[in-house]
């Protein structure tokens, strides 16, 4: 019988981790609303891991998940202080990944929890790093991205050979290269790739974000204003640097 219905493979997935430091429902909701409003497209497309830095009651946890979903975030797993929440986590259709390790290299190592994924990972030969030929080609846009428009390069880099207007939004899972003036919003590494960068010929942006960290116009203005620049993440801080 070679007619198998499915195959199991190991995979890696980058996602946003929402670290819950303290949970006061009203405060949490308004802060979350602000965060999401700052970059709506970025957040609605991303899966979410809830990291409970503090212990919550079952009711509190249910409320937390409900609030995330209300803002179109997609919690899929929980880690941290999950003691006493096992049933609630299960009922909500989430996975408890407290035991999993989270750096890329350790994903291959067998985890102590008997999840299917871990089993699959053990049985699948360690996959080679993707060669250049396997990379998804960059999305190339050669017209200006105008106010009110949005371009998203899913699973790849984004190359724009024109300007990005004020009021326009460009997003990529990888890097963003703009061979023109960036006046709008550019969000690179939207699924959490902290290595992603934004490059532009002239920096005049409303907002720049890398893997969820972002800076607004006023901060952008302080460095490389209307100059060729790159923006990248260095230990959770966004750096703006001129490119010669």
């Amino acid at each position, binding site marked *: 019988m070679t007619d198998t219905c499915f195959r199991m493979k190991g995979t890696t997935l980058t996602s946003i981790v929402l670290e819950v430091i303290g949970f006061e429902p009203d405060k949490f909701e308004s802060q979350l609303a602000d965060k999401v409003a700052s970059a709506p497209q970025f957040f609605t497309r991303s899966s979410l891991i809830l990291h409970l830095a503090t212990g919550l009651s079952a009711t509190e946890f249910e409320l937390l998940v409900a609030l995330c979903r209300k803002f179109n975030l997609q919690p899929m797993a929980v880690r941290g202080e999950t003691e006493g929440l096992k049933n609630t986590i299960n009922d909500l259709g989430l996975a408890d990944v407290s035991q999993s390790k989270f750096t890329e290299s350790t994903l291959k190592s067998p985890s102590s929890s008997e999840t299917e994924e871990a089993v699959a990972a053990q049985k699948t030969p360690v996959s080679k790093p993707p060669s250049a030929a396997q990379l998804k080609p960059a999305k190339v846009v050669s017209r200006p991205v105008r106010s*009110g428009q949005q371009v998203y390069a899913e699973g790849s880099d984004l190359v724009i050979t024109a300007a990005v207007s004020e009021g326009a939004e460009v997003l990529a899972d990888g890097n963003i290269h703009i061979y023109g003036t960036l006046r709008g919003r550019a969000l690179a590494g939207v699924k959490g790739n902290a290595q992603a960068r934004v490059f532009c010929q002239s920096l005049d942006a409303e907002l720049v974000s890398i893997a969820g960290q972002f800076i607004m116009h006023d901060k952008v203005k302080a460095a490389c204003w209307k100059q060729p620049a790159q923006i990248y993440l260095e230990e959770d801080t966004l750096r703006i640097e001129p490119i010669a």
Partner: protein
Amino acid sequence: MAKIIVVTSGKGGVGKTTSSAAISTGLALSGHKTVVIDFDVGLRNLDLIMGCERRVVYDFVNVINKEASLTQALIKDKRTKNLFILPASQTRDKDALTIDGVQAVLDELKKEFEFIICDSPAGIEQGAQMALYFADEAIVVTNPEVSSVRDSDRILGILQSKSMRAEQGKSVKEHLLLTRYNPTRVESAEMLSVADVEEILAIPLLGVIPESESVLKASNQGQPVILDEEANAGQAYADAVKRLLGETVEHRFLEAEKKGFFQRLLGGK
């Protein structure tokens, strides 16, 4: 081949109707059979600027609803040969225009005319989208101020994503028409300069029309300003029409008029 050109802007009150009237008149004067259509259903301005408001019997919506034939609704311009006006209705709302209805009318007009000029309503919603949907080319009317430039940018985005040509993977030819340009206010940095606007919108410049009292005078007389050969606004529109027809004409009226020797001597304003 008939060319459909939409005159659009996003923002209201920037000079779309003034420009539609002037440019269609200019094209007709150059010997091209031209019709100008008022898509601003509910407002109906074009016939006033063209000075034919008293001759409106049937309108665009009547033709779409088959309550009148195109021949009945088209108004032949009194002054200019080769020029016709299809007025808007004052009593309907914007929903009276349907894609199929508009297409049928345009198809019929294409058989007769070389240029079909569509005067768009303000905004970026349905009415404006209807006016630009079938366009081959677009004249984007912009005033030298930030909000107008931003709206023009939005309408350019819509043009290249929601027009029929865009849906077919083709592009709509873009022209920038900068109107109500006041060089003195540009010099004092109260207004954006031609270069500023060109840099942001990055589309070819069709013309710069100076802010001029002659425009108001012309519209009060119901006469497109292009017919006022003395006025700089009229001359600037004439230049723009030549460029639209492929001629290379240098841009004029970009600088503030220098004060005369005696004025300077006397310190007059």
